[in-house]
């Protein structure tokens, strides 16, 4: 029977993608030609047999609501269980921390039937089967399991890191502002018995403390058996426009494509029912990802075209990301740019970004 309930905790997410997260939360940022970031965690839940998913939305979640709809695309349109959107009680009050938000929805946790709870973020790009995490959690006799990923380079970015011993048991949790190669980055994803989660959450709330990672996990490392789970699959860290762009471009490597989209089953997203991409006589497309509903008469190189993009005759697109329904006029020239949804580029227009590409806002006419 149902063992794990899933929680997508958006309250702590920082909107780090500049213009892309100006009017939407990071979980609903488009990625990979036809997805939004939240599709990855939702698909992981579906494939792990998790049928009860609570989305703790806090702000800028209108696009997210629209994307999630009834939850049908992820088979979460259910009578019992399914998808629950759980905003804070009163959005005008100040947000003290995720524990407050959880506590407001205590009855949701109490009435859910699952024995375990998995809390995670809404914007990690990965393929993980939480059944394996649960198995390992049980095998280790852990009270709490924290999922982490090794970091591959030195970079300025704010993350919690974990010290683990030889048995993967967590010794310490640090908040870091610069991450180094080999660091164990905590993915804000943790599994425990639901009953323990409720007890800890209530206890901490009543003490007037509100941050789950700091005030519950970090504060209880000695009191409980806290285990690490090292996620070893492909996982890009997206925490800036630069990393968003670079990891998007990495998808043009067929090996990355294979790992992310084929090896673990497909990723579910909202279906748009566009026709196959249409290449006209003059089209020249190389080393690019093209989604359905596109019509291409121009030149596309090293780029990603989301669903429903039109590239008119003579237009050139290089090293760029064009989101849904973009339209590039005749003889326009684009290089190193990211166009958010619905951007129209006029005939003959030239748009050139730098190494860190320029982002053009949703629905702009250039």
């Amino acid at each position, binding site marked *: 029977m149902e063992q794990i309930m899933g929680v997508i905790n958006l309250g702590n997410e920082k909107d780090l993608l500049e213009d892309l997260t100006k009017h939407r939360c990071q979980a609903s940022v488009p990625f*990979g*030609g*036809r997805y939004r970031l939240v599709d990855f965690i939702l698909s992981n839940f579906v494939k792990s047999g998790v049928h009860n998913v609570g989305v703790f939305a806090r702000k800028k979640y209108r696009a997210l609501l629209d994307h999630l709809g009834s939850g*049908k695309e992820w088979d979460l349109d259910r009578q019992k269980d399914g998808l629950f959107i759980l905003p804070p009680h009163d959005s005008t009050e100040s947000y003290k921390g995720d524990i407050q938000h959880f506590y407001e929805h205590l009855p949701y946790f109490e009435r859910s039937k699952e024995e375990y709870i998995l809390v995670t973020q809404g914007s990690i790009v990965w393929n993980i089967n939480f059944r394996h995490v649960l198995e390992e959690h049980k095998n280790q006799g852990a009270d709490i399991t924290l999922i982490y990923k090794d970091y591959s380079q030195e970079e300025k970015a704010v993350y919690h890191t974990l010290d683990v011993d030889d048995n993967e048991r967590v010794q310490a949790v640090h908040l870091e502002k610069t991450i180094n190669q080999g660091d164990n980055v905590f993915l804000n994803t943790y599994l425990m018995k639901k009953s323990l989660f409720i007890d800890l959450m209530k206890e901490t709330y009543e003490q007037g403390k509100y941050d789950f990672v700091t005030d519950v996990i970090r504060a209880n490392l000695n009191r409980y058996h806290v285990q690490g789970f090292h996620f070893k699959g492909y996982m890009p860290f997206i925490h800036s426009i630069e990393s968003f762009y670079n990891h998007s471009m990495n998808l*043009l490597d*067929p090996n990355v*494509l294979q790992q*992310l*989209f*084929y090896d673990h089953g*497909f*990723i*579910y*997203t909202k*279906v748009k*029912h*566009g*026709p*196959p*991409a*249409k*290449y*006209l*006589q*003059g*089209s*020249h*497309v*190389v*080393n*690019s*990802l*093209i*989604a*359905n*509903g596109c*019509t291409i008469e121009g030149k596309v190189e090293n780029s*990603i*075209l989301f669903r429903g993009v039109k590239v008119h005759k003579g237009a050139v697109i290089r090293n760029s990301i064009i989101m849904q329904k973009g339209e590039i006029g005749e003889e326009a020239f684009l290089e190193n740019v990211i166009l958010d949804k619905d951007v129209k580029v006029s005939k003959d227009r030239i748009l050139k970004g730098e190494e860190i590409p320029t982002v053009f806002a949703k629905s702009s006419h250039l």
Partner: protein
Amino acid sequence: MFKKETIAMLLAGGQGTRLKGLTKKLAKPAVPFGGKYRIIDFTLSNCSNSGIDTVGVLTQYQPHILNSYIGIGSAWDLDRKYRGISVLPPYQGQKGGEWYKGTANAIYQNAYYINQYDPEYVLVISGDHIYKMDYSKMIDHHKEKGADATIAVLEVPWEEASRFGLMNTNDTNKIVNFEEKPTNPKSNLASMGVYIFNWKVLNQFLLEDEQNKLSSNDFGKDIIPAMLKKDKELYAYEFQGYWKDVGTVKSLWEAHMDLLSDDPELDINDPTWKIYSVNPNQPPQYIASKASIKRSLVNEGCLVYGNVENSVLFYGVYVGLGSTIKESIIMPDVKIGANVTIKKAIIASGTVIKDGAVIGDDSGEITLIVEDLGIAPDSNINKQLT
């Protein structure tokens, strides 16, 4: 049950023998079409887009894949709580049963289903044809005329007319006579196999038709002539636009080539009239550095390293380096190795084409390759194999 003004009955039992190997394990309506669809998607999308949310799908020949494709109808928004789609196989009684004897008999056998909704009108359509049509406008026309039955017609070239059911109409569109595939056509207004009937009237004619042992229980051959004989009010409704019976390998190929023009008569990219299909959730297509694609339709989940021209690639197709595909239809999950040449061919789902194979030629014939033949390297196949 809710009363519904109009419900649709979709005939989907067609064997489609002239599609040869393609329909060996598939009913004709389930044959892949247009890079991501199956033929039946067009009529189901017509229903959905016309606001008809109660659809009985009559299956018989090779129903399994069609059944599991339709599922609960989510793809076409027909998974309705109180109505929606119902798959209706021939009823198997205690003393055995039999296949539907003809199109009219298929409706007759499902009168129980229709009566549940107590409809005014029954729309009878076939899952074999490619076209976009707003049935709600035809229903309006039917009501305005106060008709007992309305038949959708389109003008066909005179030289092809004798392949169709043809009708003569007066200046108010009333049908004065109807001939099924006559040798000497007197009209070029052909029936599209789309009918609206007043259910009470049709039910009466179906009952009488069943009594007649000599009847072939067919709409075109029996029911329509009988209605005309009894002076019922039959009207023609003229349809403008693309309509194609993709009943042969040649017509299936032609219909695909029609989609490749810059401004095709059948627009499958119209956001106000989407063609719905079951989505296999595949990632975007990847077009590699040395690939070249011209005048083609390519679906999600394809990986293209070679050259594709005037062709249609369904989902999950792999085209290896140095291969060239021209004027061809490559159905789902076909894997094409390196240095393959394919010309004017249809490759059926799941086929694996090994490196260096040459398939098809310029002879004008269309080469059809059906799954699991495992084309050997450097083989040269230019005739229909099945």
